[in-house]
């Protein structure tokens, strides 16, 4: 038996009072008037021997009553796990959200996190529901106990917890995890024969790092009633961290031959400002240089010139407090080829022709190599393969047919209508008869009126800074007549109302009613030209320019490897000894950082997987921010031992103090009866 408030047992010392009073004597009842008390001194009351037996019984009752009162106030309980008591207790549902993101690899955070989970188990009583959910970028249920049965359930949960030997390498999307748990609680309905939950508590065991927590997802979320969130922060002693990530890896505008850049960031609580930047090559060489990054700042470092060209497979930083994110796996970008076929008779060097501007618009970059090829419209040869056809002239039937098939097959084609002779081709590709093209020569110039700014093709101009087309003048344009009503979107019109840029939904055929040569317009020389062409080519570029840099948990589309022609039977070889080969259909989700190799039939490509860059931002979120986000925070928790004691013994404690109180009342009643009887039987004092 234990006592919740054992200090009250000191009240039993009050037993001394009745004992002393009984040892002395009780106060005489009779009064004796006397002439003068001037000769009398106070004497101690004597013991009345005749009344001692009655007094002993009274004394016993009084002592027992006092003892029981002290007992009641001390709140006795017996800590027993009795499942039968569960029905009488308030059920609670405790959900523990355990952070297993990469940042939990720091120091002893993982051991501390597990200890926190185990202390949370101590709060559970029989009948409670318990959920253990691990989260990083996604949530995963580790253990689910519908009705807690004490030590058996605890062993089961501990077993599941032990299986999770160490944290993963993912990010820490706390916001999403919280919302998903909240939704799960909201959707769960208590069964009819179950006692409803009096309390639903979410205990977050995490380092509560700022990076990647996505707490904005919690903002505005309406929490179910009765849910409280307890934050158990385990990295309050954050010593700062430095991280490395690649800047704009694989962006198409990075010129060919440019050295890759890396951003090295140091958290505000970083321990130093001098970091070492290292590069490891496949040949085992290691290069290093000092990088000065003050705490709270970041710095972009270009790979030094003498490192470029070396087979660098891994970059690293050194000099910060936590090492879990100091490695950066690097897969060199493999240049992809984009083939553009110009159908027309323009000379490549003719500044009056369209090809000249087209060829100059596509410059090779670090990841893309553009091959611009010209084919005459009257060519009888086969149509070369291309990612983009630009048709700038009338095309013969055979070629037109091949082009039509290519367009039907999904190849992007841009038809620049430059002469009425293209009407037949246009009618053929659009599947419409009677299309007429009429030259329009403006006496002044025509302006462009963008009609569908939300079209993906023109989305690049949506920003107000780029949406001004008034400086773009069109001297000559063609008016397309008898176009079919359906299947064609007019993206832009000339100020005369004639369609200027059109998109046919059949395949991906784009029409421009005016060329970009200086004879037709200012388009080729305007700032709109190159963005427009890249915008036309975007679907192709999106396929071709897939980065070889991924983060843990991201979806790697293996079908885009090998220049978008991966084919079937792709396998992925994870980093390590090469013994494991993972067959992948389309999407592969890496779980650990490292250099992976994707193998297809006749091709092999390496891609790198790194930690999410946000994981490097380990400084904790300020606790007041959680309150601002409307999180139903629980009050500061009492000591787990107290909670455990209170929880386990609630029903027993109630029973005990009630019985003890009843006994007190019984004793007091008996004492009253006996005392009254004793006073009646006592002889009156006579003088």
């Amino acid at each position, binding site marked *: 038996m234990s006592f919740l408030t054992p200090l009250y047992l000191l009240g039993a010392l009050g037993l001394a009072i009745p004992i002393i009073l009984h040892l002395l004597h009780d106060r005489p009842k009779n*009064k004796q008037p006397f002439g003068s008390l001037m000769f009398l001194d106070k004497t101690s009351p004597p013991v009345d021997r005749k009344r001692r037996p009655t007094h002993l019984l009274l004394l016993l009752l009084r002592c027992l009553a006092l003892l029981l009162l002290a007992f009641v106030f001390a709140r006795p309980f017996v800590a027993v796990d009795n499942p039968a008591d569960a029905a009488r207790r308030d059920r609670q549902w405790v959900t523990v959200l355990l952070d297993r993101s990469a940042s939990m690899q720091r120091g002893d955070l993982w051991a501390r996190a597990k200890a926190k989970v185990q202390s949370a188990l101590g709060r559970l009583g029989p009948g409670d529901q318990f959920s253990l959910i691990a989260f990083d970028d996604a949530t995963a249920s580790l253990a689910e106990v519908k009705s807690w049965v004490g030590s058996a359930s605890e062993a089961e949960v501990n077993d599941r917890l032990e299986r999770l030997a160490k944290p993963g390498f993912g990010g820490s999307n706390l916001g999403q995890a919280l919302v998903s748990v909240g939704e799960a609680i909201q959707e769960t309905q208590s069964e009819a024969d179950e006692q409803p939950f009096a309390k639903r508590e979410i205990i977050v065991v995490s380092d509560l790092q700022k990076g990647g927590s996505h707490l904005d997802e919690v903002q505005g979320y309406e929490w179910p009633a009765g849910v409280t969130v307890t934050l158990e922060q385990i990295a309050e002693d954050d010593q700062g961290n430095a991280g490395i990530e690649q800047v704009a890896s694989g962006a198409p505008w990075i010129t060919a031959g440019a050295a890759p850049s890396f951003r090295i960031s140091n958290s505000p609580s970083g321990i130093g400002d001098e970091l070492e930047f290292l590069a490891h090559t496949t040949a085992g060489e290691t290069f290093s240089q000092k990088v000065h990054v003050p705490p709270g700042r970041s710095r972009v470092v270009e790979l030094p010139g003498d490192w470029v060209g070396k087979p660098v497979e891994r970059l690293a930083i050194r000099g910060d407090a936590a090492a879990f994110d100091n490695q950066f796996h690097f897969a060199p970008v493999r240049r992809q080829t984009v083939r553009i076929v110009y159908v027309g008779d323009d000379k490549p060097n003719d500044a009056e022709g369209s090809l000249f501007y087209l060829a100059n618009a596509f410059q090779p970059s670090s990841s893309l190599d553009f091959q611009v090829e010209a084919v005459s419209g009257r060519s009888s040869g086969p149509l070369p393969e291309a990612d983009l056809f630009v048709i700038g002239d009338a095309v013969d039937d055979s070629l037109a047919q091949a082009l039509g098939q290519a367009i039907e097959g999904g190849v992007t084609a841009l038809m620049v209508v430059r002469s009425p002779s293209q009407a037949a081709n246009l009618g053929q590709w659009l599947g419409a008869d009677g299309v007429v093209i009429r030259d329009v020569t403006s006496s002044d110039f025509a302006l462009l009126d963008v009609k569908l700014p939300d079209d993906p093709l023109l989305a690049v101009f949506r920003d107000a800074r780029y949406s001004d087309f008034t400086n773009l003048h069109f001297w000559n344009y063609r008016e397309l007549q008898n176009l079919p009503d359906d299947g064609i979107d007019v993206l832009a019109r000339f100020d005369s109302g004639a369609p200027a840029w059109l998109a046919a939904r059949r395949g991906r055929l784009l029409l421009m009613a005016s060329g970009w040569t200086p004879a037709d317009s200012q388009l080729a020389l305007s700032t709109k030209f190159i963005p427009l062409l890249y915008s036309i080519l975007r679907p192709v570029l999106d396929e071709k320019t897939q980065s070889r840099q991924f983060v843990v948990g991201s979806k790697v589309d293996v079908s885009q490897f090998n220049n978008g022609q991966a084919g079937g039977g792709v396998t992925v070889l994870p980093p390590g000894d090469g013994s494991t080969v993972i067959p992948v259909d389309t999407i592969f989700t890496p779980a650990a950082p490292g250099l992976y190799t994707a193998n297809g039939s006749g091709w092999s490509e390496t891609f790198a997987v790194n930690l999410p860059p946000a994981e490097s931002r380990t400084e904790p979120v300020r606790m007041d921010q959680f309150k601002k986000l409307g999180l139903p925070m629980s009050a500061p928790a009492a000591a787990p031992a107290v909670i455990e004691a209170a929880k386990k013994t609630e029903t027993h404690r109630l029973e005990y103090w009630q019985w003890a109180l009843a006994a007190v009342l019984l004793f007091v009643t008996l004492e009253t009866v006996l005392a009254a009887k004793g006073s009646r039987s006592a002889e009156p004092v006579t003088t």
Partner: protein
Amino acid sequence: MEIRSLSLRARAVVEGFMSGLHRSPRTGFSTEFTEYRQYSPGDDVRFLDWKVMARTDREFIKKFEDETNLRCTFLVDFSRSMEFGGDEAGVKKSDYARTFAASLAWFLTQQRDAIGLATFDRDVREFIPPRYRQDQLKTILGRLETQPAGNATDLCQSLEKFAALVGKRGMIVLVSDFLSPLDELERCLSLFTAAGHDVRAVQVLHPREVDFNYEAAAIFEDMESGQNLILDPGMAREAYRQKMTAHNDALDAMFSAQGIPGFRVTTAEPLERVLRRFLEERPARAVVRQRRSNGRAAA
């Protein structure tokens, strides 16, 4: 105290006593010579003793004993402490004291003496100057029969006040329990003895006040102050008796020093015997006084 009427009680007590002769303490113009005094101018020449003057050639004034009746004033304690008693051990002290005073008054009235009464507790409450009248006794008995209203006793203050009220010299019979501090009492009593009053003190005590003969423990309540004291009589008895004896001894010493005859009676004593003792004491005192006077005159 089976007779309820105070007058009947007094009469019953007095019956059987012979009337006595009282001497007046004042000298006056009567036939009985008391002493000579040297003539001084202003004295009435009628009282010159011509024979002595002729014989010795000195002028002496003859002084005679006053033959007026005795002037007796009863000073009776009416405080609450006098209400103690009234049990099988003895009557109430107040009843005893009043009966004593009434008996003596009756007796003196029979002797044609002037009687007066003063009652006191903290102060003098009633004062009936001594007279010899037809209804004086009745008035005094009536006053004695009233119930006391006072609380505490202040004997000395009452005596001081009474000294201012009382006129001619006479007998003063002080009836009290004298259960109060004696610090100032001697000085106050000396006011009367110095003025030539014949003071007699009767201390009335209840037998339980003397021997403190109680058995069971009780809350003892002071009848004057209302103060309570829980005590066991067996344990307190010895100390009480010692203090009471010491108090009485101090009182006796005080009376003796002032030449005051003191009578200590308990309410268990028969009143007739007490009255006889009281009356027997007076001639003896008178003889002593007479001898002193004669002695001085002879000188």
